[in-house]
């Protein structure tokens, strides 16, 4: 097979839309343009039927009932709706939420907002492998705790949290369990009943669907969960999320879920094989380390630190041909490296030296081979011009140097 350039290895940021998804969407922009809430004519019925079908496709992927799917504009909105909606709905039961430090900003910043309006939040640390400590989690539960919000798979490291164990703890204490499943749904088997999930946010554009659409799963039985709407208006989505439904995007989301459902098993095997090849190919370099536990990980993600070279400088060596992302913060104005990697106990220096590889449906083995060669070559080249590498080679302990922090 021939090599296609440029290579896209940033599938944790977003995925290209599958052409089959686009085909399903197209009629709903033009001839089937109706408002799914128009109950009195065929244009509305056609749109409603399409949404109903998509809702079934989405529900099926996660083992839910279609009535438990609330369509939103994406995972960020679903995260907000879950956390703020539970906080408001269950105010009489308590005001304490437990989350963890490696969550996506959509969860962390929503929790910070909860604190500004009088709520209490515990941010659990993670262990060096990226996993939350279950004993810590259980200890953090108080009689006021109403929600545990722990993500399924991490966007930077791919680490998969012990979801079933977490949900058991939540059940035992009568606390609701919300998980941000954005990176996991469609990539690994997620079953809301087997996993004991009460609420889950996920998004279409991380699974080869369109941007601008996502969903919140809200359990209807054992227990029946309700969230206070954060968007008021026409009472769409059983009153939990008003706003005219984005029919073409929802149709695409449904199709994307169906494709993942059918292809996940073979695809996750293919991707984990490619990911392992990539990782093994790069770990032959000295002083290269995988971040996050390799045992519990999404099949398509690898996060590797190449000590003594800086991530952005590294990417510049091949960014004409390879697109990926780094835990280095040099691209942002904050100059702070990845908080997720720091939460795993990595020093800022190692966080600055990290690259995230996010493989996807359209990644080929030829592209992986090319990437291994290009990254290796650039790491070696940059180490030749790295004063830190020279010091390391001379046996100088970099921690003992008094650096001029700026």
């Amino acid at each position: 097979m021939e090599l296609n350039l440029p290579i896209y290895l940033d599938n944790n940021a977003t995925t290209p839309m599958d052409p089959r998804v686009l085909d399903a969407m197209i009629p709903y922009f033009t001839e089937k343009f109706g408002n799914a809430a128009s109950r009195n004519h065929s244009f509305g019925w056609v749109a409603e039927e399409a949404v109903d079908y998509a809702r079934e496709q989405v529900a099926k992927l996660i083992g839910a009932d279609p009535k438990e799917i609330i369509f939103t504009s994406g995972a960020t909105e679903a995260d907000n709706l879950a956390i703020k909606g539970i906080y408001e709905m269950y105010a009489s039961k308590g005001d304490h939420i437990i989350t963890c430090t490696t969550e996506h900003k959509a969860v962390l910043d929503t929790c910070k907002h909860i604190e500004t309006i009088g709520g209490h939040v515990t941010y659990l640390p993670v262990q060096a492998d990226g996993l939350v400590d279950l004993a810590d989690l259980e200890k953090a539960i108080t009689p006021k705790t109403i929600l545990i919000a722990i993500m399924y798979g991490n966007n930077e490291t791919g680490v998969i949290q012990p979801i079933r164990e977490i949900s058991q703890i939540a059940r035992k204490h009568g606390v609701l369990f919300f998980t941000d499943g954005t990176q996991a749904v469609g990539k690994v088997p997620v079953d809301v009943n087997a996993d004991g999930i009460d609420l889950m946010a996920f998004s279409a554009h991380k699974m080869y669907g369109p941007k601008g659409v996502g969903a919140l799963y809200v359990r209807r039985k054992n227990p029946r969960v309700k969230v206070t709407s954060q968007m008021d208006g026409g009472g769409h989505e059983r009153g939990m999320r008003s706003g005219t439904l984005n029919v073409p995007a929802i149709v695409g989301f449904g199709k994307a879920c169906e494709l993942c459902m059918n292809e996940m098993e073979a695809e996750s095997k293919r991707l984990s094989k490619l990911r392992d090849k990539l990782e093994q190919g790069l770990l032959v370099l000295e002083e290269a380390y995988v971040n996050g536990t390799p045992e519990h990980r999404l099949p398509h993600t690898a996060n590797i630190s190449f000590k003594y070279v800086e991530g952005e400088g590294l990417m510049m060596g091949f960014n004409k041909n390879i697109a990926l992302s780094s835990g280095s913060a040099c691209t942002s104005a904050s100059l702070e490296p990845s908080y997720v990697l720091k939460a795993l106990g990595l020093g800022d220096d190692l966080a600055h030296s990290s690259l995230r590889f996010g493989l996807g449906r359209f990644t080929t083995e030829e592209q992986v081979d090319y990437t291994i060669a290009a990254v290796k070559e650039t790491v070696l080249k940059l180490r030749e011009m790295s004063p830190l590498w020279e010091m390391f080679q001379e046996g100088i302990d970099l921690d003992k140097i008094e650096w001029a922090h700026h």
Partner: protein
Amino acid sequence: MAYSDKVIDHYANPKNVGTLDKSKNNVGTGLVGAPECGDVMRLQIEVDEVSGVIRDAKFKTFGCGSAIASSSLATEWLKGKTVDQAMAIDNMDIVEELNLPPVKIHCSVLAEDAIKAAINDYRVKNGLPELVEEKKAH
């Protein structure tokens, strides 16, 4: 954020990467930045004892493309200048030459700091007082 052609060129073909013998009296070494901040520059000058002209300059940099380009450019500019002339290199000259965006100005400041640190190291080695300048914000 796209890099300027000059930054790309310095990154792809860095000038004067290397190490000078820091035990020599006429070699000044400046090591600035910190690994935790994502950039460390080491800049060295070798001064002709008779003329006071910088006859060689080398660098090694851990950092982004702009940091590498700033130090590479600095070594180019240093060669052939007297120590006093080198002292006058301003970070904004580097910003202008490399067309650095605002978020990368700190790379040029670091390069200026590295030049001054190298010069001061050379001065101290040769019994001259350190030159103290106001620190620029990074």
